[in-house]
């Protein structure tokens, strides 16, 4: 079944044709180009989101002073370089919205999903190439809509990325009018883009696997993207619905979230977090998959507990639907319900722990090669452990009553989303760059970027736990307005200086991506001696992915240091004699 589909697609691609510039680079239907388009869009948005973070850090360390170099920004956004409160609120709103919806999701799901799924399952393209193209361009339109909100009267949305009603539902409460409407429209449009992508991923993975690529022979990256696509398909419509109701409240005079007309503010929070918690896992699962592949490859060992890893991801995805209330312990929700959510939240820690122990098990008795990709993947594990463990305090309802809405939460989310997802992204980019662009990245520059990022990341976000314990509220513009926060001003300054280093270090990544594209050493077919199918075709792969026939799969993706062969790797598609006997021997 899957092979006939592959043959049919192959036939379509076999006709000689040279698509022009527009069809190759702009309106491409090739999943590899679409993946790259998502990557470049996300890197561009990362620069904007990062700049917002830098401005926020200036404000928090040296409140109500002029930001050097920003005198040119017109009023009312800045006053001779000084940031007014509403601009500050707009900045953290846009920072989070951009980083979540236009950086982490497009890279992890859009870029790696598109680029890797057909190559790793042995398909010539996605199931629906046109839909794939439409998905990217819909996402790009969403990005343009969001960025256009910087130029409307009142500025961009300033109600937080969580957009709690009624603050977000009535223009006079924030003073932002069309900025918030455009935020709503942008996320609805992005939701459509994500839906198209997820339908495509699910269909492709179910129907287009090459011969022998059973589900339990899929690389964990593909498992993670498959589960993520299912979460996206089910979660995004809830957010779209909630935002549509919010837009009706803003533009149509309805009162879904406004108590004055019989509405209920907590309805927004339930809908938002019902989407929002699966969303958290949408942003971490693909990074877990990438880390698993990278760690196995460079440990030269099978991933420890392959099936446990896959089942743990399925468990995380399932449980993610029944933990949303832990964002609402102090919202006024019934405290008995809070206890229920506390228990489900504690339980979701179990599959996360299983994954961590299995990554450690993979290192055990390995032969570990410290490439840049491996170092980023190991950093992912270490930072994910911190982010996961700090979640226990938040799950504990009485403790959450104190640390809720403080910098403790900000520290936690950045350990998971930056320490977790972004180190996963760095690992993925450095690992697959040769396949994407046909050139090796500069290892030395990569390692310098890694070390500066790793150290400054921890200097930036670890002290935020201490700020949170001291009671430092999040989303405040000037901590020095509070007597009880005055003693921790030096910590805020230290964090900001670290954050500037962290921000500046990302230019090294950008420089490496650009430099290597032109000057990097030519990449061979399989530079890492890896097992999965994408390494069985030239770098970069041609249109249709394999110049000849699509490879056939004989074994799982992690047969490193197998006793059956002399080399320390055994590609999924390599036929060896007696492999049937060997399989029988193992299963006995």
């Amino acid at each position, binding site marked *: 079944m899957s092979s006939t589909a592959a043959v049919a697609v192959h036939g379509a691609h076999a006709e000689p044709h040279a698509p022009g510039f527009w069809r190759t680079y702009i309106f491409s239907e090739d999943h590899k180009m679409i993946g790259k388009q998502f990557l470049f869009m996300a890197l561009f948005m990362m620069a904007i989101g990062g700049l917002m973070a830098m401005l926020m850090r200036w404000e928090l360390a040296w409140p109500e002073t002029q930001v050097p170099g920003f005198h040119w920004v017109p009023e009312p956004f800045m006053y001779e370089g000084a940031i007014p*409160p509403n601009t500050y*609120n707009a900045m953290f709103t846009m920072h989070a919205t951009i980083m979540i919806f236009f950086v982490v999701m497009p890279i992890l799901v859009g870029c790696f999903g598109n680029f890797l799924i057909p190559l790793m399952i042995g398909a010539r393209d996605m199931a629906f190439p046109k839909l794939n193209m439409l998905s990217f361009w819909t996402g790009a339109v969403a990005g343009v809509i969001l960025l256009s909100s910087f130029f409307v009267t009142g500025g961009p949305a*300033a109600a937080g990325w969580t957009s*709690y009603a*009624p*603050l977000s539902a009535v223009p006079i*409460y*924030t*003073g932002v009018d069309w900025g918030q409407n455009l935020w709503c429209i942008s996320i609805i449009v992005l939701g459509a883009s994500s839906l198209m992508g997820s339908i495509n991923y699910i269909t492709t993975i179910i129907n287009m696997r090459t011969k022998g690529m059973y589900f339990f022979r899929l690389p964990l990256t593909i498992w993670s993207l498959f589960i993520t696509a299912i979460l996206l398909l089910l979660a995004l419509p809830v957010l779209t619905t909630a935002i549509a109701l919010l837009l009706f409240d803003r533009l149509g005079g309805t009162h879904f979230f406004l*108590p*004055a007309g019989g509405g*209920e*503010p907590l309805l927004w929070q339930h809908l938002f977090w019902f989407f929002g918690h699966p969303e958290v896992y949408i942003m971490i699962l693909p990074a877990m998959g990438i880390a698993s592949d990278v760690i196995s490859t460079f*440990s030269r*060992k099978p991933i*420890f*507990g392959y099936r*446990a890893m896959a089942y743990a991801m399925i468990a995380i995805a399932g449980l993610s639907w029944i933990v949303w209330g832990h964002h609402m312990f102090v919202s006024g929700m019934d*405290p008995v319900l*809070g*206890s229920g959510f506390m*228990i489900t939240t*504690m339980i979701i820690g*179990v599959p996360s*722990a*299983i994954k961590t*122990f299995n990554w*450690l*098990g993979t*290192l*055990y*008795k*390995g*032969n*570990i090669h410290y490439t840049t990709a491996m170092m980023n993947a*190991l950093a992912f594990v*270490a930072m994910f*452990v911190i982010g996961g*463990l700090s979640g*226990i305090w938040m799950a*504990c*309802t*009485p*403790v959450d*009553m*104190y640390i*809720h809405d*403080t910098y403790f939460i900000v520290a936690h989310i950045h350990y998971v989303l930056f320490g977790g997802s972004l180190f996963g992204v760095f690992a993925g980019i450095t690992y697959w760059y040769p396949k994407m662009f046909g050139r090796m990245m500069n290892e030395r520059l990569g390692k310098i970027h890694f070390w500066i990022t790793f150290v400054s990341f921890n200097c930036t976000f670890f002290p935020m736990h201490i700020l949170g*314990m*001291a*009671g430092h509220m999040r*989303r405040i*513009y000037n901590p020095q*307005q*509070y*007597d*009880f926060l005055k003693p921790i001003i030096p910590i805020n300054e230290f964090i900001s200086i670290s954050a500037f280093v962290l921000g500046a270090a990302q230019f090294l990544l950008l420089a490496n991506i650009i430099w290597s594209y032109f000057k990097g050493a030519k990449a061979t077919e399989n530079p890492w001696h890896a097992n999965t199918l994408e390494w069985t075709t030239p770098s970069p792969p041609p249109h249709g992915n394999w110049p000849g026939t699509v490879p056939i799969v004989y074994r799982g993706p992690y047969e*490193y*240091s197998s006793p059956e062969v002399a080399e*320390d790797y055994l590609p999924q598609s390599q036929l060896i004699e007696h492999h049937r006997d060997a399989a029988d021997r193992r299963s006995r």
Partner: protein
Amino acid sequence: MLEYLYFPHDISTFGPQIDWLFELIFWIVLVVWTAVMITMVVFMIRYRARPGRKAEYIEGNSRLEIIWTTATAAILIVLAFMSRSTWADIKEHGPPGQVFYAVTGKQFNWEFTYPGPDGKLGTKDDIIVENELHVPVNKVVRVDLTSKDVIHSFYIPNMRLRQDAVPGRIIHVWFEATETGQYEIPCSQLCGFGHSGMKGNLTVESQEDFDKWLKDLYANPPAPPSATEGASPK
């Protein structure tokens, strides 16, 4: 400096329970984190690549999987039930109130409603004071919390108390201060451009001082806050 690297000084009756849970989790987390990191670093050094060596082919170990799954689940579920009882003490039961107030959040002030000379809330002689909350020490204070416009959050760091104030709902909270002094009541939920700096002052005083202050308040009630204030961003 060092004393500020921890929680603010606790002055509530339930604070010690919360701090205890925090510390319990801290020690669990510290042990787990240290064990994981030491294991990881030892493996990273010991099994670094050396020429001519091949990694050992190990696919997994079901017994280990079962051990670490059960152990993690056991610790987390025990923690959940321990937290559950503290949570129920604070949020579900709580002692009967001795002093009663209504607290209303609005952009960007707290309105504290004191019962008038009749001692009852919700009558005509109630007095509203902006941003000044006086409570007697060692008395159970019960508050009816609500909001006029957007969601605010009633937060007293020194009490370990936080509760969102939601428009259209009245939420009951209670606390009992164990020490006199001056404390701050920030808003901890984003409520608009004036969110930062929205704060009330909490004065915990002896019963005599409190009675004296209340008498002065009855004698010279402040003008009621104007109706147009609040939801009027520029």
